[in-house]
């Protein structure tokens, strides 16, 4: 993107949508490929319903009411059936899911749903991670939340680093296998007792274990 995204920082839907999009963008950089099946089903049901309505409108406009009565009857029944199907689909299957995807090489898949309650500027994520550990399928669930103001400033600009740090630390697979740049806090102390942030102000360090795990060494 040429210029940084700017949104209205007081609008909860805007905040939620920007963060949802950023989740997908971040996971793409971490070699996860997004599966669009959920969205595609919803789009195809909606398109079919709109096409039926469009066809009814066109036929009624060109041929008049009497001639098209039978077609209109079937079209209305079909339309409202599709509409009900769409509502059921949205309520039960898609609900608040914002991301479904799996890693390109490793056997890890993620399903993430987000929620925002009214008048509360906190972003709540429910992360479902399913991976194959030692031949067994393991499902891990994380419920994380973070205030929007951690990654969206008061002018409405979206700041990537704090968001990606928070998100990376929330997803178990990324936390364990990647070098997540961690913001230094006061608890980090070196062996000789010196506080790390005094020595290296503003430098980001990772857990360091990612590279070892990738080489297959025990950590």
């Amino acid at each position: 993107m040429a210029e940084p995204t700017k949104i209205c920082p007081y609008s909860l839907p805007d905040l939620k949508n920007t963060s949802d999009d950023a989740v997908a963008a971040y996971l793409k950089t971490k070699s996860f490929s997004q599966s669009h099946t959920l969205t595609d089903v919803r789009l195809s049901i909606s398109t079919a319903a709109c096409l039926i309505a469009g066809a009814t409108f066109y036929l009624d406009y060109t041929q008049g009411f009497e001639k098209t009565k039978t077609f209109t009857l079937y079209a209305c029944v079909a339309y409202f059936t599709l509409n009900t199907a769409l509502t059921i689909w949205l309520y039960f299957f898609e609900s608040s899911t914002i991301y479904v995807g799996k890693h390109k090489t490793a056997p890890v898949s993620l399903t993430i749903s987000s929620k925002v309650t009214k008048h509360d500027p906190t972003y709540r994520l429910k992360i479902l991670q399913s991976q194959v550990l030692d031949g067994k399928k393991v499902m891990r669930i994380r419920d994380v939340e973070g205030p929007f103001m951690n990654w969206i400033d008061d002018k409405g600009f979206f700041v990537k680093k704090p968001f990606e740090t928070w998100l990376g630390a929330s997803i178990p697979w990324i936390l364990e296998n990647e070098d997540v740049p961690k913001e230094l806090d006061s608890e980090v102390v070196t062996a000789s007792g010196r506080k790390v942030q005094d020595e290296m102000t503003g430098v980001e360090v990772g857990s360091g274990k990612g590279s070892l795990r990738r080489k297959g060494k025990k950590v």
Partner: protein
Amino acid sequence: MLAALSAYQPRQLLAQVLNFGLILSTAFMMWKSLSLVTNSPSPIVVVLSGSMEPAFQRGDLLFLWNRGADTQVGEIVVFNIQGKSIPIVHRALRKHVSRPSAKQSKSRAYPPLKLLTKGDNNAQDDVVLYTPGQHYIDREKEVIGSVKAYVPFVGYVTILLSEHPMVKTVVLGIMGLFVILQRE
């Protein structure tokens, strides 16, 4: 605004357009369903002239029902003259029931019923309004329904919109823009 649009990926843009389309489609299909239930091409009409005063004023909303083969004298019917698009709301003054011919029995739902109409506030009956040579209107072919209920004054907005058609286009355009640019 174009920058906001270009920030959308194709799926999101399609989802937004479909959202707008679904709103329009649902409204249209509900209208069509009402049309089917009442058997009338236009189940809700607005009174456009003052020919039925003091019963109906200009701008009243009328609800029609078109499944009555047994229209009585004194019922208020809405009809279109062949070739003219404006619906006329007048009272039935006289009726004739003819014996249907063989061809008519096949093409009609009930024996041909002919009505002579007159507006309450008019001096003459409607023969001057019918096509030249026509003395009665056909209940099945020209009448789009008889009035079952009405709401006063609500339809005045439609009259304003039809007399200034640009307003309708502008309002619809602004609505569409808002729905597409807002993701809620």
